[in-house]
């Protein structure tokens, strides 16, 4: 349900948190922060705080889930009970099941799954605090975790949403904009292949508005991609420094 009472864009064209329509929230990315995981990353995007970790490649267990022609990616997107306003039961909701599926579908195209038959990797995304756009932020972090695990990738994957609030197409909706606004379009992109691997929409947009939102989301993706590269670089520079000591 979308309500229309609140004023989401002020007279100066700025949003509730002072952003311009095409402005991202502040993003913080860290790679390799969970010692036990084979790969891991942490993202803050506005007030979103999300961890992603990868275990594998490894033998599939149970075995009947293995595939003779490719690696299997299992994905669990999950919200901590304290990540949202009303405490969420830790049992996976239908929403979490669906998001786990679309995130998996958004990442598989970037992995050379056909090169590692019979193996599997487990991806876990934990939302510690949610503020709108968690699936996109989760994908952005997950791609870094997969890269850190040393799993060969065609390209990184980066995700960002655009949408419509108060008749304006805006980038990277925060929680209130998502709930009260009139449309939300999350998009995931393999930036060098120009391939869209996640696309969903909620709300109502005419075809022109949709195209505008899609293009804005893609722009957002490309900006975040630069930060992803930076985060990976930082990680490996640090690593090199550690090794050189």
């Amino acid at each position: 349900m979308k309500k229309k009472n609140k004023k989401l864009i002020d007279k100066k064209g700025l949003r509730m948190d002072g952003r311009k329509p095409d402005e991202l929230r502040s993003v913080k990315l860290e790679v390799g922060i969970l010692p036990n995981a084979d790969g891991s990353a942490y993202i803050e995007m506005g007030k979103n705080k999300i961890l992603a970790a990868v275990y594998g490649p490894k033998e599939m267990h149970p075995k009947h889930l293995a595939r003779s022609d490719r690696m299997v990616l299992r994905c669990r997107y999950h919200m901590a009970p304290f990540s949202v306003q009303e405490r969420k039961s830790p049992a996976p909701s239908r929403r979490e099941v669906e998001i786990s599926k679309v995130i998996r579908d958004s990442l598989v195209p970037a992995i050379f799954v056909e090169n590692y038959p019979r193996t599997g990797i487990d991806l876990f995304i934990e939302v510690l605090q949610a503020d709108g756009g968690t699936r996109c932020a989760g994908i952005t972090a997950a791609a870094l975790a997969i890269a850190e695990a040393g799993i060969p990738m065609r390209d990184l994957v980066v995700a960002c949403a655009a949408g419509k609030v108060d008749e304006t197409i805006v980038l990277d909706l925060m929680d209130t904009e998502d709930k009260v606004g009139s449309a939300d379009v999350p998009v995931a992109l393999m930036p060098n292949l120009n391939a869209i691997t996640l696309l969903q929409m909620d709300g109502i947009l005419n075809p022109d508005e949709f195209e505008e939102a899609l293009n804005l989301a893609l722009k957002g993706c490309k900006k975040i991609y630069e930060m992803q590269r930076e985060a990976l670089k930082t990680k490996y520079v640090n690593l090199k420094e550690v090794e050189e000591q």
Partner: protein
Amino acid sequence: MTGSIAKIKQKQMEQLLSKGKRLDDRGLTDYREITLEQGIIERAEGSARVFLGKTEILVGIKIATGKPFPDTPDAGVLTVNCELVPLASPDFEPGPPGEKAIEIARVVDRGIRESKAIDVKKLCIKAGKNVFVVFVDVYVLNHDGNLIDASALAAVAALLNTKMPNYEIEDDTVKITQGYTPLTLKSRPITVTIAKINDKLVVDPQLKEEQVMDSRISIAINDEGSICAIQKGGAGYFTTQQIKEATKLAKEKAEEIRKKMGW
């Protein structure tokens, strides 16, 4: 289907597609035959059965009274559930809905909810206390591909066929009275699914096409021709250009179906 047979099948299909042909002689943008029956479950407040080729979906609507959600005290409740009934396919197993069934239910739900087809305020009996709950149960009876479009169509058809119980409020308790009033829909969203196979876009994939497709996109179109829900699925990708093509195609096919349905 084992990997090697699948590869041969895929090759055949790709050769056909490169000539603009499909396994069942349809054109790339043709739907299979659509048959719709409404009201076949008299016990339910609404019902509809859709055949999309050999895909068969039955939707039943049940109306109950219940409490509103705390954050929307003056709104009724819409609940969409999908069961991949095990008699519909050797691949379906008994048990609670898995991710495939949940995705279908949520995509159908989104099409109805976001198009504002149902005026949930009208389902409110007494704000904060009693509201109507509309249960949309999607029952897949035979699976031959494109369950999303068939389910979405059957759900809207069943809602169009739904009668709401009359009621009175007496001393703060709701009393269901004789007779019914039809549920009116403010929109009739139509969902169109387009699969990408070997870089070609094909409308309404049948099961064999789904088994080899790269990915699919499902787009719900409302009465005004606007988009009210999108879901990309499958372990592949689309280019920006393909997305544009797909949205255009979806709008055309939705209008075509709308005309056929008389909506």
